[in-house]
Structures are given as C-alpha cells and as structure tokens.
C-alpha cells in the first residue's frame, strides 16, 4: 500500500462497523464484571464476539493486521508496521 495514498471510503466504513461491535463488547465486559451471573447477557456477548471476529477477518484481508504478537497472520513482507496508524487516518 502506498503510504501517501489516502485510505478508501470502505476502510472508514468497515472500521466503524468494527468500532461499533467492539464498543458493545467493551461495555458488556464491564457490565459482566459486576453481573457475572447474567446468562442472557453472556449469550449476547458471545454472539457479538463472533460477529467481531468475522468483521475483523474481512477487514484484515483488505487493510492488513489489526493485532500483532501473533494475534493476526502476516503477509510478506511484514505488514504490521505499515502506515497509517490509527491517529494518522
């Protein structure tokens, strides 16, 4: 990816979908930390965790890894260090 080319519209759209699902996962995590026996919410949490994984697989295919230290696979050459970083987009 040419580092001077702006990211396409689809990058922002897919990223926002991931941010939305992951946000609910954050909020549910804190909720479950104080409500560990809420069975229905744990079901909702697991369903969303699955959705998040699906969205991220599709994102990473197009725009490179979201995680490293082994959290994502790598293309050749090593693509983790590729700009843009979150604060740059």
């Amino acid at each position, binding site marked *: 990816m040419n580092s001077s080319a702006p990211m396409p519209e689809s990058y*922002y759209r897919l*990223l*926002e979908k*991931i*941010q939305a699902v*992951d*946000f609910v996962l*954050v*909020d549910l*995590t*804190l*909720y479950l*930390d*104080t*409500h560990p026996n809420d069975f229905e919410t744990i079901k909702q949490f697991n369903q969303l965790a699955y959705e998040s994984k699906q969205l991220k697989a599709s994102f990473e295919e197009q725009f*490179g*890894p*979201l*995680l*490293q*230290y082994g*959290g994502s696979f790598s293309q050749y050459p090593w693509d983790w260090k590729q700009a843009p*970083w*979150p*604060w740059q987009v």
Partner: protein
Amino acid sequence: MWYYEKKLQYPVKVSQCNPMLAKYLIEQYGGADGELSAALRYLNQRYTIPDKVVGLLNDIGTEEFAHLEMIATMIYKLTKDATPEQLKAAGLGAHFVNHDHALYYHNAAGSPWTATYIQAKGDPIADLYEDVAAEEKARATYQWIIDISDDPYINDSLKFLREREIVHSQRFKEAIEILKEERDRQKIF
C-alpha cells in the same frame, strides 16, 4: 500482558488546525484527572483489591489507555503541521521551544504529570471511592472542554468520553456494593 489493536475505540475527526484547543485538551492527557492518571491509578490498585473486583479495575484501566490514545489523536491532529507562529499565537510557544510538535505529559497550564495525582491506599473502600470521584472529576473536565471548544467533531468525541466516565463511575459504585455485601444475605438486583 497487553495486545495493541490498530484502531481507535471511537472515530476521532478534527474540523480545523486549532493549536489553542490542543492546549486545553492536554489537560486530559497529562492532567490530574486525565486519562493517564486514570489508567495508572486503576491498574496499580488491582494488586491489592479483593479478587471479586480485580477484573473490573483491570478492564476499566485498559479502556482508559484507549481514551488516552483518542486524546493524543485529537492533539496530534489539531497541531500537525502548525507553524511556530501559529503555536505561539495559541500560547504554545513555550511548549514548542521544549518539545517541537511532540506531545508531553503535562496539564493545560504546563505542569508535568506526577504520581501524586493518584493514590493507592490499600483499603478497598477508600480506593474505590477515589475511583468514583476520579470519574466524576474527569466528567466535569470534559464538560468544561466541550464548553470552551467550538469544533463540532472534537465535541462529538468528547461527549463519547464524557459518557464513558458516567458508565465507569456506575461500575465502581457497583464494585463498592459487591464489597460491602453481607456474606450470608442473598443479593437482590
């Protein structure tokens, strides 16, 4: 250990180059009630709090680092490529001669971050009440920055962060409820 994820928690957009607003936002970067203080306070208190609420401190502390990155992104974008003249006009001349465009952990008035901003008393109730107070103080700081800012995009992100303080405060209050509960009594939610 921690894994870094290459995304912001919430989208950050900036409408114009505005170093003056960056100078105010620094308060939530390296100020007493800012995100760095919050993250370090909670993660440090984890070691001496009852097991029942360690998870909550761990997870809120981790979320605070995501907020720190959002604040850093705002400051970075508001000042990126600003000329020394623009920085001087915004009251950032003193910052520029020491740091150029680099971010630094200090508050809006330039005082460097200090560990004295945070406490770890080792007493679970004292520590959790500090955490509730810290969230309310951070909420108030976001209000005053929203009041002084006229950037609609920045304000959108700041409203998100303000709401997170409210949710965190709620969870810390629940942690206190959990710790004060009498052992032989049934919980009723």
